[in-house]
């Protein structure tokens, strides 16, 4: 696709879209197009309708209440904790993944022996589901204090790093940052793979040229390599950012349903399916959708424009 785009000029490509061969193609993808129309866009539409309704309880109630569900959310103390938690989680998670991922990628790029082994090693956590990660890290980050220390805290205590002993996700306000650590562990290998591909695409001749001009190794990275892999950073931020907005399973596995570590997706689940506040749940769903859209749509627009430019 990318190759085809690169070779054909835009207007020419448009004319070719509906040849006989393409008709067959359209026919083949039609079932999934229909499924997407019904199950994605149809349900988005239905959720939007429910989010402006008074639906509470088992029976559907489509009484129009305008934006009441949304304005209630704005003054809901639990929802403001959700926003705060999501913000902290996103910052820690995205920055953590970028820093660790870039670090690992640079180390691998330096021509380490058995590179393939390390590459797989760092990528493996991504193959694990967040639920499994959550359960394992729940044990590692056991917040018990005193003589019931266990997991990482016990390790810190035994090796004389007692000042590091902490309550992990039990910490007031910042507990959610502790939940972001396993997420960084899981996704930084993936970020590394993105960066490694980016680094490999930077021609060696450019670095050589910089070195000949007397640039230090640090300067080579700061002035030559980093600007060239900026698009990788942007993609990584988008991908990681939308994962963090939707995070649900990791928190449930690590800490269960508790307001202190609540995020919008968990609030949506509990209020809808435990409390039958369907209108409010749908409103949270729409807010989540819009926040992901704010992140993704400019990116899509940017990439599409770049593709048609090239």
């Amino acid at each position, binding site marked *: 696709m990318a190759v085809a785009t690169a070779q054909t000029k835009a207007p020419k490509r448009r004319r070719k879209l509906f040849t006989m061969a393409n008709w067959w193609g*359209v026919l083949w993808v039609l079932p999934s197009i229909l499924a997407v129309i019904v199950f994605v866009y149809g349900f988005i539409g239905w959720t939007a309708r429910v989010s402006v309704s008074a639906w509470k*309880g*088992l029976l559907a109630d489509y009484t129009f209440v305008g934006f009441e569900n949304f304005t209630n959310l704005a003054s809901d103390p639990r929802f403001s904790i959700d926003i705060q938690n999501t913000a902290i989680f996103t910052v820690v998670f995205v920055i953590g993944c970028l820093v660790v991922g870039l670090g690992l990628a640079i180390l691998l790029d330096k021509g380490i022996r058995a590179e393939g082994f390390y590459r797989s090693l760092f990528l493996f956590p991504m193959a694990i589901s967040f639920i499994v990660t959550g359960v394992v890290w729940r044990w590692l980050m056991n917040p018990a*204090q005193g003589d019931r220390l266990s997991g990482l805290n016990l390790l810190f205590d035994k090796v004389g790093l007692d000042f590091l002993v902490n309550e992990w996700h039990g910490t007031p306000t910042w507990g959610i940052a502790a939940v972001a650590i396993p997420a960084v562990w899981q996704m930084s290998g993936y970020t590394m793979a993105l960066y490694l591909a980016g680094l490999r695409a930077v021609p060696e001749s450019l670095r050589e040229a910089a070195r000949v001009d007397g640039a230090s190794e640090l300067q080579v990275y700061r002035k030559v390599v980093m600007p060239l892999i900026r698009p990788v950073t942007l993609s990584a931020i988008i991908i990681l950012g939308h994962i963090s907005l939707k995070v649900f399973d990791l928190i449930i596995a690590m800490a*269960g349903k508790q307001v202190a570590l609540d995020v919008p997706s968990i609030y949506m689940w*509990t209020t809808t399916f435990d409390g039958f506040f369907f209108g409010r749940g749908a409103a949270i769903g729409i807010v989540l959708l819009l926040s992901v859209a704010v992140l993704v749509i400019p990116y899509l627009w940017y990439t599409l424009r770049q593709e048609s430019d090239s």
Partner: protein
Amino acid sequence: MSMKKAARFIAVLLALMLVAAACGDDSSSTTAAAGTDDTTPAGDADAVEVFSWWTGGGEAAGLDAMIAVFATTDPDIEFINSAVAGGAGTNARAVLASRLQANDPPDSWQGHAGQELIGTYVAADQIEPLNFLYDQEGWLDVMPETLIPLISKDGNIFSVPVNIHRANVLWANPTVLADAGLEIPTTLAEFFSAMETLKAGGMDAPLAMGEQWTALHLFETIMLASMGPSDWTGLWDGTVGWDSAAVTQGLEDFATALSYTNDDASALSWQDAGQLVLDGDSAFNIMGDWAEGFYRELGMEPNTDYVWAPVPGTAGNFQFLSDSFVLAKGAPHRDAAIAWLTVAGSNEGQDAFNPVKGSIPARNDADRSLYGEYLLSAMDDWASDTVVGSLTHGVVANDSWKSEIDSAVGLFLIDGDVATLQTALVAAQAASG
């Protein structure tokens, strides 16, 4: 692209969508027809479909024991066990909700007795009152008088309770108490001063607590202790306001109780919290009497490894929760469903179910030789105490109200501000009471 081609494309797309929609209609009407086929003749009594989330452990074993009784009393009726696993009933309730919305109810289903059932299914007009069955079987004479209003609405009784659990139980480690020279406390004041003594003796957290729902459980028992049974019940029928001084006092007592709990509570399950008492890391735990089943599974001896008492300040009150069965409105096999409910409420059925599940029967004429030491003490209390309902386990408030209170208590665990909690509780009643 040319306009013509675009138009053709859209036309084909629309045509295919229509075909797909027609297929969809077609298949759904076939399933509906098939559904009516196996369940057709109304009032037919050759099968009964019972829906529950009892798929494992003592619950499933208890259900099987009760099904065995049903097989002897009604050998001609086939029992269809539609149990759905997962999530402490969350999955099952979602499945049930979709079946009810599709007008395809099972004949009978399980639910927590009280407002959890009434608020959801009576409000949606999906279950039948069972007063006729209570009259016919004489259940009103063998079940506590104070129980009936808690499982009724406007004088109609809507479910048959098969088991009774007690929420307001204090579990304690007798060795820890003896070492500190303490007796089991009987009032809230004694309770707090005992924990103060233990704290002074170097115990970080005399009261063991687990994740957020166990805090809600603690909340309801302390509120009952502080307010007394009539005010507690009044909170739910609207005769006592959530903004009253009695509530403020209860919330302050709750805050005091929380100050003695372990700081890793949010990371512990209720079993972990119970384990802290057995290990002597904590002296007390407030949990429903399913904790007894957990202690026994671990091989612990009643009165040696653990002791129990009503939560301090709640002696004479039995804060109950119960699993019960209902009769679906428009049940495909109404007569068979009534036969099932008759067994569920009978002595034979309840004595088959409860010893296996580790709970007591709702009836007070059970065969005492079948039950262990703790359960016998609970049966005595059940027969003589004032019965009040549990909040965490669905008796006093409907699901919406309960989830709002759960949010409010969760926020309180973060900020610890009693006034904010009380405001939130008043708002919770307004939003869903």
